[in-house]
């Protein structure tokens, strides 16, 4: 104890310095808001980066658990895919259309006859009136794109009027600006990967590469991507222009299609039929 006292008194300057410098630093930190905020910030930085490192470690340690859950999820999804591919079961997929507050039901169907090279092409599917298919239902492709409308229905089969038919017209939007148009095929074009969008007003600005989607007017649910614009400004001589688009779906390899059941379709048709014919 005595030695300690001698030590302290010999180096008293240093201990005085520690005390007074400590007071000075304390005052600096306590009373100057700038230094205070800096200290707190850097403290947070230190704490934050420490937590970040810890989290990386935690992630790594949890990888096994995550893998397990992903494997389980994969198995479940694969089961679902298999169920969807089994066309002969009456599997249906429900699509909630939040825009129109309508509920569309998709019915998977297998294409049993298809043509793409005629002027007016038709597709036959393995679904009929027993599956609830009625005339004028919309048909879409599994991934992207539209297929056509139901034209004729028998008990177990149905004939679809393909988009590749000069009597087919589908109401579409240009996705970018919601300009309204009519998707058609034919009129000298017999390429199954091309179609035309007609009746786009001349003042609408369009670009090559813009996406075309269904408008939701008619039997098709809105927002289905149809194709991409490949050529613009085909003048028709009046106040409308025609766009050439390339279709997203390939009709030549079409194997499965979805028939869209519109819960409100019949009601809408019934209601609209009450309008006086002009």
């Amino acid at each position, binding site marked *: 104890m005595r030695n300690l006292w001698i030590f302290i008194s010999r180096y008293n*300057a240093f201990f005085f*310095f520690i005390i*007074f*410098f400590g007071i*000075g*630093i304390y005052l*600096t*930190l306590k009373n100057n808001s700038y230094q205070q905020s800096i200290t707190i910030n850097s403290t947070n930085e230190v704490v934050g980066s420490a937590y970040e490192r810890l989290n990386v470690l935690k992630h790594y340690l949890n990888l096994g658990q995550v893998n397990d859950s992903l494997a389980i999820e994969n198995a479940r999804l694969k089961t679902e895919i298999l169920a969807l591919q089994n066309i002969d079961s009456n599997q249906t997929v429900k699509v909630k259309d939040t825009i129109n507050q309508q509920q569309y039901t998709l019915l998977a169907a297998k294409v049993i006859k298809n043509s793409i090279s005629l002027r007016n092409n038709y597709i036959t599917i393995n679904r009929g009136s027993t599956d609830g298919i009625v005339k004028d239902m919309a048909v879409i492709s599994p991934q992207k794109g539209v297929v056509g409308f139901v034209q004729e229905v028998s008990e177990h089969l149905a004939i679809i009027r393909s988009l590749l038919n000069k009597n087919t017209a589908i109401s579409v939007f240009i996705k970018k600006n919601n300009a309204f148009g009519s998707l058609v095929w034919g009129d000298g074009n017999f390429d199954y990967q091309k179609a035309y969008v007609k009746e786009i007003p001349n003042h609408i600005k369009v670009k090559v590469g813009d996406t075309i989607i269904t408008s939701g007017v008619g039997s098709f649910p809105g927002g289905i991507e149809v194709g991409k614009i490949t050529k613009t400004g085909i003048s028709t001589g009046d106040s409308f222009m025609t766009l050439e688009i390339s279709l997203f779906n390939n009709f030549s390899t079409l194997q499965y299609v979805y028939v869209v059941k519109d819960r409100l379709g019949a009601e809408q048709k019934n209601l609209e039929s009450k309008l006086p014919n002009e």
Partner: protein
Amino acid sequence: MNSRTIFINIFRWFVLLFVQIFLLRNLNYYNLSTPFIYILFILVLPFRIPNLLLFILAFFTGLTMDAFYDTLGVHTSACAVLALVRILFISVSVNRDAYDEPEPSLGNMGFKWFSLYALICILMHHLVVFFLEAFKFSEFVYTLSRTMISGIFTLLIILLVEFTFHNRKAN
């Protein structure tokens, strides 16, 4: 330590802080250098002053500066550093038995010793002041250059003051 020394130091304290606060506070060279001549008071305190008293005087001088500069704690810390540097420098450069001179002024100790003493003390003090003020190392070079330029500025003024009073005393 007689009453005359005490009176002179009190008088010096008031004059230096008055000049510092009301004159040099407004003197600023491109926001780079501000001279702090008030530390001359601590530099020329008598040799035989007890360490505790030296620290207490330095502390209150710094506190007064902080009160006027609105930088509470910055000059207080810097003055604590200054006091330590002063004690260390004197202990290594001046023979303890040869404290025949009352205080480490230019006139008593000679130009060479005093300018080195002042330079080291000023640089340490300014280093603490500017780094505590900036409170980050990201502007290290800028803060260091402020320290250097201000330190030279302060040293010149302190030497000027010392020369003036030394000559007058000699007369």
